[in-house]
Structures are given as C-alpha cells and as structure tokens.
C-alpha cells in the first residue's frame, strides 16, 4: 500500500510506518508470540518434519541415521498392494459412512423436529453416542458380537443362525466398521440439521401450503435448499473426520481380518511404529495430507461463502 511521497524524503513514509508499527503494535505482537511459538512447536514443526521424512529412508530404531532416497518411497507405494487396498477401504468407508450418516441424520432430524411427547428427551438421549469415548463404543460393539455371550450372537443362536466373533469374519468386519461410524455420528448430523431446519420460519411452510405445495414439495423446495449450507459443512467435516479416523478401526479390528478393514491411518501407523519404516510411513502420510488438503480447501471455501 505504501506509495512514496516524492515531495519529502523518499524514506519518510516508511519511517513513519515503522515508528507507528513499533509504538502501537509491539505489545499486541508480544501477546500473540507465545501462542505462535506453541503452534509452531506442536503443528508446524511436526508437519514439516513429516514432509521431510517422506523423502528419506529412516528407521524408528535408529532415527538419527537418515538416507535421502528422493521419490522412491512414493514409487514403493505404487507396487504395495496393501497400500492400495488401504486407500480403497478408506475411500469406500468415507463414501458409504458419510452418505448413510447424512441420510439417517436427515431422517432423525425430521423426526426430532416434530412436536411429539418425549421429543426433548430423545433429542438429548440421541447425543449419547456422539459424546461416548471411542474406546467405550468399540468395547460395546465388541461385546455385542462376542462368540458366546454377545447379545447379537445369542439372538442369532436362538434363530438357529451361525454365530461367530463377527469382527473376525471377512466380509462382515468392514460393514461393522461402517455401522460404528454411522452409529456414532448420526446424532451430530441430526442436531445440526435440525437446528438449520428450526431456523426456517413456520410462515414459509404456511405460505407454501397456500401456494399449493404438499409435504414432499415443501421439503424439496423450502427445507432442502435452506439446509444445504449446513449439510455441505457437515458432509465436508465428516469426510475429513472419517478419512482420518484411526481409533475406531484400530481398536476394533486393528485392520484385520486379513487386511479386510485396513485403512490409511492404521496402515501408516503399522508401517511407522510396527515395521519401524518411518520414512515410508511419512510418505504415505504425505499422500493423505494432500488428499485432506483438497477437502479442507472445499471447507474453507464454504465457510468463506457465508
């Protein structure tokens, strides 16, 4: 912005600006500095260090010995079948879980919005799954599908159907992971969507009734367009959450059985901390970071639109 004032000394605007900066703003900067240092130490440094590691071969057992290998870590990914299936599982899990969460959340929101007796209680109660710690939720689910005394198996046995530890059954473990994600997050969608719906004045629906719109048309033309913003925010956020999720998968199946539920976060963890291949893990994490950045850009754009 600084344009030089040629009539006086050419530097004087800069000097004035500098003096003003020093006198007015140094205190402000001093106040912000600790936070900046903290953020730098806990976010910027590890991120940059992770990016750096992606181009080295380095073992967790001897982290000081780093060998620069260029892009060979990335090349290794291309021929790593487990990596490819982990990436596919992650994308599939994210797509299926987020879609189901949104649809069920929307349905729950519509139900909770109604003025029926007990709706207030259900509104509070439905949040339980969301506030439950991840480990507690996983333990509940593991208990449910225990071979002998798990309620799910007791019911199946009564019906004369097969019983087993379902988290250990290929083809069932992955859907169970999806179910856990859905079970956990649907209430959050419902509450957010319900809040958006409640902000639509009742008179708009009355006007729509007089305009000849039935319940479905009112939903399509009045409700849906006005909750689209909150919907997009919720979807983008949960794409990020689900894509990143580690604890649900790791605690329930650990990526098994036979890699059936392996996702990016669990595979990266295993490579880095179980196989000690810190460099390879970091390079996969970088790929994940780039994918996540794309969604973050969408999110920031959406936020800025408001």
């Amino acid at each position, binding site marked *: 912005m600084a344009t030089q004032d040629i009539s006086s000394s050419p530097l004087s605007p800069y000097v004035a600006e500098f003096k003003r900066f020093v006198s007015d703003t140094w205190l402000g900067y001093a106040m912000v500095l600790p936070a900046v240092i903290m953020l730098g130490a806990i976010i910027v440094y590890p991120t940059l260090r992770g990016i750096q590691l992606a181009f080295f071969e380095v073992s967790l057992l001897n982290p000081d010995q780093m060998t620069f290998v260029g892009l060979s870590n990335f090349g290794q990914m291309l021929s790593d079948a487990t990596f490819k299936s982990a990436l596919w599982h992650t994308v599939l899990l994210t797509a299926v879980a987020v879609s189901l969460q949104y649809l069920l959340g929307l349905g729950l929101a519509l139900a909770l919005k109604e003025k029926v007796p007990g709706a207030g209680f259900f509104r509070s109660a439905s949040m339980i799954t969301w506030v439950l710690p991840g480990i507690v939720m996983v333990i509940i689910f593991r208990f449910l599908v225990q071979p002998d005394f798990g309620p799910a198996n007791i019911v199946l046995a009564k019906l004369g159907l097969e019983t087993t530890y379902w988290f250990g059954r290929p083809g069932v473990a992955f859907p169970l992971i999806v179910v856990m994600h859905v079970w956990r997050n649907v209430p959050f969608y419902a509450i957010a969507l319900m809040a958006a719906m409640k902000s639509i004045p009742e008179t*708009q629906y*009355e*006007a*729509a*009734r*007089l*305009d000849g719109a039935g319940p479905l048309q009112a939903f399509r033309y009045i409700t849906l367009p*006005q909750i689209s913003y909150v919907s997009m925010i919720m979807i983008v956020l949960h794409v990020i959450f689900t894509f990143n999720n580690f604890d649900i998968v790791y605690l329930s199946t650990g990526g098994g059985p036979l890699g059936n539920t392996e996702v990016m976060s669990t595979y990266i963890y295993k490579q880095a901390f179980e196989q000690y291949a810190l460099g390879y893990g970091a390079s996969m994490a970088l790929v994940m970071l780039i994918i996540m950045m794309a969604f973050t850009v969408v999110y920031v754009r959406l936020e800025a639109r408001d």
Partner: protein
Amino acid sequence: MGKLDVQHLKKVFHDNSGDIVAVDDFDVEIEDGEFIVLVGPSGCGKSTTLRCIAGLETPTSGELVLDGEAVTDNKPKARNMAMVFQNYALYPHMTAEENMSFGLKMTTDLPKDEIRKRVHEAAEMMGIDDLLGKKPGDLSGGQQQRVALGRAIVREPEVFLMDEPLSNLDAKLRTTMRTELQKIQQKFDVTTIYVTHDQTEAMTMSDRIAVLNDGELQQIGTPLECYHQPENQFVAGFIGSPSMNFFDVELDTSGETPTLVHDAFSYELDDDVYADIENSGQQFTLGIRPEDIKAVPAGTHNALSPEVEVTEPLGDVTYVYLQIGGKQYTATLEGDIVIEPGRQLTVQFPQDRIHLFDGKTGETLRNREPPESSDIDALVGLDNVGSVEVGAE
C-alpha cells in the same frame, strides 16, 4: 366471484391449562369484492379467524362457504385464496420471480413461458419488474412487501387474506402502501380480508370493519357506523384516536331533573336522553369523543372546570389532557388554542354528542345524534395526517 360466507366459526385451542376459545361464533357474510378489516387488540382472535379462513387452522366448528360451495374441509391450496403474511414469508433462497411463480408452478400445469409471462405482468403492475432477479435479502422492507403482494396477485385468487401486512414498515411507507393496497384491491376487485390492530388502517381502508374482542365479534359495520354508532363500550373505545373518554356515573333522580353524578361533576340530562336510559338501572358509563368536548365560558350549564395537565399542539388541532376525578381525559381543541399546564379550562359535553353505556354490560343505550356532513369532515382528523379543514362552528 368471491362471496365468502363465514358461518358460526369457532376455534378452541387445547392447552395444558385448559381450553382457550380463540374465536367464538364468528358469523359474517362478505360480499364479492368487499374489503373487510378485522380489527381488535392483540389476542382478540382476528389472526386465528383469518388462519381458519385460509385453512391453516381447522375450525372447531362452523362452516366456510365460498360462492355457495362449502370449503371448510378443503386444503389451503383448494380454496383459491392467497395470503400476505406479516413478515411476508418470502422464500429467502428464491429470487423474487421464483417466489412469485412458485404458486403457479405448484398448482397449475401452465407451461413455463406462460408462468413467466404472468409473473412479469403482475410485477409490472406492482412496479417491481426490475427486482425480479433479486433475492428477498437484497430487497428493502417495502420491496419485499410488494413482492409478497405480487405473489398473491399472480395467482388470481378469489379472496385475498392479509395478516397485518403493513406492520413491519416504517410510518411513512405504511401510509403510502395503505393507499397502494386500496388501489390494487379496487383494480382487481378481489374480496379482501385484512387483519390489523391499527384502527387507522381499519378506518381508512375498509368497506366494513369487524371489531373483535376476546374472540367475539363486537360489531360489524362501515367505519363511520362503528365510529358514531358503536354497539358497545369496547367498540366505542377501540375505534377512534385519541380514544373516547369514559366516565363512570350514577343516575340520580331525586332532584328536579335526572342527573348523572360523577365523583368530579354532575351532569343534568335532557328528557330525550333520560328516556333512553330510564329503565336500565343506576350505573352508567358516559362516553364522549375528544373532539366533541367543547371549551365554553365559565359558568355555562353542565360545564366543568378541570385542570389542564399537558397540551400537545399538533398544528391543526391541540390535544388537551384534563385531570378529572383523578384520571386523565383528552379533549381535542382547535390548533391555535394553547393552554398552559396547571390552568383550569371550562369544558362542556354537548348533550347531542354524548354516548351512554350500561355500567355493567357495556351495551350501548344511547349513541350521539347521527353526524352531519361537517362532522364527517372533522372525523378525518382522527387520521392525524392534518390538511383537513375543520368546519367552522
């Protein structure tokens, strides 16, 4: 055609604390093209009545007959009515054009071009054709109001329903829109039911006023009928601004002439006035409109000399607030009369201008003499817009 017959409409809301009768036995026949205003204080049931007519509420009992056909059980869309809401209820995510075409899109099979044509015609008539591409958020209150009206007009309904459509506008715009609404209504000649709590709107816009209180219809009649011949004390007090002065009085027939006795004055009655209240007990309410109070020389018959509390000169008229028996009353005097607060003013209630109500039921026992043309001129003063020549007495 839009002849609407509302028969014994009743609406009861059920609440934890019991039943609330919002509308009780509302019965009125509305002619085709008539502009009828439902007026009353907050909670009097006027909006509920309108919503029952629109089909947004189901009446507890009663019938709605539109052009000879019962529509009580019809859905809102099958009633051929359009409503303008107090907050306009425009769809915020749609442009003005989409807002206006929504009803046609939902209820008709018209091709897009035809809908577009109709919307543009209506918009042109409302003077909003340059706003069609804008969303409600980008429009001012007055523009939103026009779009809301346009949305109602474009559907060519039999009946317009308006729920306090002007109350969100500022005072100046409200006056402009008031006349504009009347023009539109006359142009389309559509039966209109208009709800307001503003008695000025009621007086100036309507063919007939229906005054409601506590869910009950108090009176239905032309504005001037309601003003000059109120059927009870409520209507007398509600219609007119500033409102009618009421004095609780007791009839004393012990003396030579029958006299109404108030704490602060006594008022001797003429024979014809007395004849109207003779058999109605002892307790009455004497009513007189502020503009009917006359300033007279001290010592005049039936006069009283209260203290002036405040004067409000408006230019054309002056409101004088008088202290009578510990209460404040209003007199409207000519504009150039300025009286200092604290002085005594001698005033008289002309016998041909007083109203008398039953002290217990509030029913009218006697109304003022029917007005002459000079009185009708004076009436316009209640609008407070000035510019009216008051007939010289």
